[in-house]
């Protein structure tokens, strides 16, 4: 049964509707340090999907009851800007955005040394400014870079991408028509160093074998995304390299 508005075919002559190969990522752009007020920030563009991340913290915990004696409280809020979708979405949280905020928090927490910041709060604000599928994965990519930009101690960055199935084919990084009219979508995130998986969701119908093949596909793509995240951070801090001499010599605490 075809949904209303579904295109006839999602795969034409072995190519996807946007011309990509089955295991090809959309164009990825990562920029660190774009919001001066934030302690750390980043913008990630994946095809037409754009997400901005701002990190504030570690900072004082308010309301007090959220304070944890032995670790930082991680607060993640994912929102979609009202004009980021074809039909305007009402500002404010929705059940969908609350769930996505939670899975993103669970995707980032394993990578952060939360125990180094007891009784503090780390706020991660994620805003989707233009949506074309893969918003939660772009958000995780932006959040990791923003956390690193803030100088928060982490075991590793977190890279994220989704893969799924459309017209019977296994495809990497579904874009809107594939996400809306395909058979399954599997958002995924991992810490590249150890390949430990920190986000795994599935929507649709897949066999065990298909899932394992998609996990392989996602893992490889995450390694590529990690390189872009690293490059964005190194680019932002590149000018610091020449300041090194002074920093190292004075880092032992020169008194005035």
């Amino acid at each position: 049964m075809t949904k209303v508005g579904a295109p006839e075919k999602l795969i034409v002559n072995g190519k996807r509707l946007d011309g990509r190969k089955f295991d090809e990522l959309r164009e990825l752009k990562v920029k660190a340090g774009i919001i001066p007020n934030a302690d750390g920030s980043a913008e990630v563009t994946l095809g037409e999907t754009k997400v901005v991340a701002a990190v504030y913290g570690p900072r004082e915990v308010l309301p007090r009851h959220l304070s944890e004696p032995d670790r930082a409280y991680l607060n993640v809020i994912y929102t979609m800007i009202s004009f980021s979708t074809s039909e305007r979405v009402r500002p404010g949280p929705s059940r969908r955005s609350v769930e996505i905020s939670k899975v993103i928090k669970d995707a980032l927490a394993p990578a952060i040394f939360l125990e180094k910041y007891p009784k503090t709060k780390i706020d991660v604000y994620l805003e989707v400014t233009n949506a074309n599928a893969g918003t939660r994965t772009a958000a995780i990519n932006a959040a990791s870079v923003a956390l690193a930009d803030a100088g928060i101690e982490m075991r590793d960055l977190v890279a994220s991408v989704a893969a799924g199935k459309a017209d019977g084919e296994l495809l990497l990084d579904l874009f809107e028509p594939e996400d809306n009219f395909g058979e399954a979508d599997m958002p995924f995130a991992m810490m590249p160093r150890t390949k430990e998986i920190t986000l795994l969701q599935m929507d649709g119908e897949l066999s065990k074998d298909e899932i394992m093949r998609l996990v392989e596909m996602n893992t490889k793509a995450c390694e590529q995304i990690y390189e872009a995240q690293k490059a964005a951070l190194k680019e932002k801090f590149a000018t610091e390299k020449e300041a090194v001499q002074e920093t190292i010599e004075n880092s032992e605490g020169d008194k005035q």
Partner: protein
Amino acid sequence: MEKLYANDRDVVVPGELLAEGMEYLPAGKAFRDGEKIHASTIGIVSIKGRVLKVIPLAGKYMPKKGDAIIGRITNIGHSGWTLDVNSPYNADMNIGEATQEYIDLARTDMSKYFDIGEYVIAEVIAISEAKFIKISAKHRPYRKLKGGNIIEVSPTKIPRIIGKQGSMINLLKDMSGCDVVVGQNGWVWIKGTPEKESLVAKAIKTIEKESHKKGLTDKIKQMLSEVSK
């Protein structure tokens, strides 16, 4: 198997592999995971013998014993004051650590010594496991900072603002005639005429932005030699 993956002065990201082998020792923002040593924040690698140190390039100020920091009084309690020190944690200054004078609470109000909103340059005398920070303004040069203007810079740039053996901060003070006190926590106090304060603030912001550029000292000298309007 002993192997070095990073070079001295490399910029590294969290999780980046620096070396493998138990002979290497992690320092600063580096940690060991099994045989491997990784960076835990964005930083610069400094290799001295077997010690792999990562100097952070970002991150909030975390107080260390002995640091001179500037704090702002936010609360007056029964036996001391609480201060915002531009850190995830607040600092406490006990009544006995505030001043050389004996404070007789029966005759006077604590706010007469330090009131909410006032600034202090103090020494970090202790940090407990639970991250309680104790500071003292009892001995010189620690004291209340009256008037003037407070600006904020990235704590990672403070060494550059102080300069080698204080060369930069002395330049700022001598050429402007202003009083300048630098807190390790990124707050800087400047006192002089409003125009001079504004000029010094501008110079400090320039140092913060261009700490990596050659000829910075000359540029600052030029900025400060501008006669005020």
